[in-house]
């Protein structure tokens, strides 16, 4: 049978969304460092504002460099489009604010990045949006937490920091049974390791600060729409008036009628970016594009190095536990083999059988690993979650999220793995003497 010829992932990583600049012939995507864009005439200007013509007006709403990044990530994820945001947190907020207002409710995995947990647990309730946190492995808990006012299910492809693997197909199916979309934070996996839309997710966001940009030099986020969710379907009807009813903020536009496949992105851009303003700077978009060009080769090396380090640490007496889903003792090992055949990423955590002082000595004795609050850098990183990224999370919630006092989170970079093993070996030895 005749098969379609379309470009493959590695090619799209380099090319999707971009073309040689028609004005100059520049092969690299230009950095369009301009706040605004000139209108050819008054009618064209009015048509751009009223969505009758395509193009750019003002860089808070869209920008040519950011648009290349958006198109590229959408292509890699297999979605219909994307919106670049000021940060991953801005992408999460944009998704939620587009789908609901006061009175809305989210069901979220409790294995979340601390910043996401803060937004849902403490900040959004001030605006009338509540969240119920559930054990991501407990399908009954997801189902039981859904209320009439629930508008979104949310989890991370790999939970932070215990690497709980989200059963995306199962949670998506459950969401769809209730006429709800599933949003996943795919930061730890990137589309190279998992394309959540192929497993039923409806929306994906990334902290592009991490593996997408890959070098720890920018803050940015990307929100991607699969274009599959029917906002006005039999089960979802009436739940998403922001998309299915006239919007007085844009000439009574009904977004789901304006665009069959991209109603969510239309509203998110035309309201969320316009009014909240958490847009990405073009220079940031350009740096993330540079990172994505090498995403496939970097992710492969990240995973290879991580496997070496995990194997080393698992054999050390001071290491009580290594939480990495490729290990048979990880509770999500079988699920990871199914959903993450290329690997489980480059972030994992270990529990040290050590006193607090020994843990501190371990981190401070590392020379190559940088002690900081980030993951997904080309350089290896380490942090103590209980006292940093998750310090606002109550103790019982910490335990539920798989974080102990002695838990150390590592993000494995692209250094020679032997050098990393030597660094870890030295630090463990120093900790043992503390």
């Amino acid at each position, binding site marked *: *049978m005749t*098969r379609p010829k379309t470009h493959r992932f590695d090619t799209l990583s380099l090319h999707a969304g971009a*073309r040689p600049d028609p004005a100059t012939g520049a092969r690299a995507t230009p950095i369009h460092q301009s706040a605004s864009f000139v209108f050819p005439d008054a009618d064209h200007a009015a048509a751009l504002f009223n969505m009758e013509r*395509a193009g750019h007006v003002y860089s808070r709403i869209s920008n040519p460099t950011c648009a290349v990044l958006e198109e590229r990530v*959408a292509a890699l994820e297999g979605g219909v*489009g994307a919106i670049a945001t000021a940060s991953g947190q801005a992408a999460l907020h944009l998704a939620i604010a587009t789908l609901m207002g006061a009175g809305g409710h989210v069901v979220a995995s409790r294995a979340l990045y601390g910043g996401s947990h803060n937004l849902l647990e403490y900040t959004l309730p001030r605006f009338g949006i509540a969240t119920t946190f559930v054990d991501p492995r407990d399908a009954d808990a997801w189902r039981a937490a859904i209320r009439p006012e629930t508008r979104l299910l949310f989890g991370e492809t790999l939970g932070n920091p215990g690497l709980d693997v989200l059963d995306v197909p199962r949670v998506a199916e459950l969401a769809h049974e209730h006429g709800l979309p599933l949003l996943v934070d795919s930061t730890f996996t990137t589309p190279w390791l998992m394309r959540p839309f192929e497993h039923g997710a409806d929306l994906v966001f990334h902290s592009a600060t991490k593996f997408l940009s890959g070098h720890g030099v920018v803050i940015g986020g990307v929100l991607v729409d*699969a274009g599959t969710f029917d906002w006005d379907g039999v089960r979802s009807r009436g739940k998403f008036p922001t998309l299915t009813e006239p919007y007085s903020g844009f000439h009574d536009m009904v977004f789901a*009628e*304006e665009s069959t496949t991209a109603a969510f*992105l239309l509203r998110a851009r035309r309201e969320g970016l316009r009014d909240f303003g958490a847009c990405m700077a073009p220079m940031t978009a350009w740096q993330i594009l540079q990172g994505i060009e090498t995403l496939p080769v970097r992710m492969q090396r990240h995973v290879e190095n991580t496997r070496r380090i995990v194997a080393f640490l698992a054999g050390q007496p001071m290491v009580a536990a290594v939480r990495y889903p490729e290990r048979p003792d990880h509770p999500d090992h079988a699920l990871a083999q199914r959903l993450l055949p290329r690997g489980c990423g480059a972030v994992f955590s270990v529990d040290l059988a050590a006193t607090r002082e020994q843990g501190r000595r371990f981190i401070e004795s590392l020379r190559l690993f940088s002690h900081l609050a980030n993951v997904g850098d080309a350089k290896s990183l380490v942090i103590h979650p209980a006292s940093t990224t998750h310090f606002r999370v109550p103790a019982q919630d910490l335990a539920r999220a798989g974080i102990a006092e002695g838990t150390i989170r590592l993000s494995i970079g692209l250094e020679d793995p032997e050098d990393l093993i030597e660094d870890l070996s030295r630090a463990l030895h120093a900790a043992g003497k503390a």
Partner: protein
Amino acid sequence: MRVGVDGREVYCYTGTRAVDPARPTIVFVHGAGNDHSVFALQSRYFAHHRRNVLAVDLPGHGRSAGPPLGSVEAIADWVAGLLDAAGIGEAALVGHSLGALAALEAAARHPSRITRIALLGPAIPMAVADALLEAARVDDHVAFELIAGWSHSPARQIGGNPVPGMWMMGQTLRLMERSRPGALYSDLRACQAYANGLAAARDVRCPALLVVGARDLMAPPKAAQGLAAALAEKRVTTLPECGHAMMAEQPDAVLDALAAFL
């Protein structure tokens, strides 16, 4: 807007404007497996520039009820029925692909109702590859993938969507994935079976615009030549480096051609 045609509910996108009988009307007719949203930019423009716009979801597509109509002739007569149902005496037609064939046939069959026809991506005959037809017959996803691949010029398969942030290939796939089982096959068979194109063109008395994509693989430019020759009053606009999905690939060029004609 929703109206009843032949006892079935039909959805028409109007650009969020009420139909004003004092204004001229343009009816937009989409192609195989699509819906009104392929004309989003162009139809919205005319709705806000002193025209009534009815961008339809054909029966069995999008938000419209009923089975697909199954032949170009049936769609042409259905368009006349739509005008009756909407209380509109006459209208210009803009059709893409299958919709272009329907616009041509409607102008020939209902000359008192159709004032102008704009045919986007037309071809006479509109041959459909056996592999595509067979995949559509069994509702194989490959049919959608083949159309996505053949409908976009090589450059746009890489990207550079004029609409910021949108991935054109993904949108084309998703829209067709939403089509009801059998709808694409019915539409493609209608294209394949349509044999009255040149005769209809010779009967057309209203002005016609042909918009041709120079890189169109679904409706190659040479397949529009005979059609253009048979039309009495016509204008041909060829869009360089443009594929079949021309409203997405070059939305402004399509709009400019339509605005100059309509």
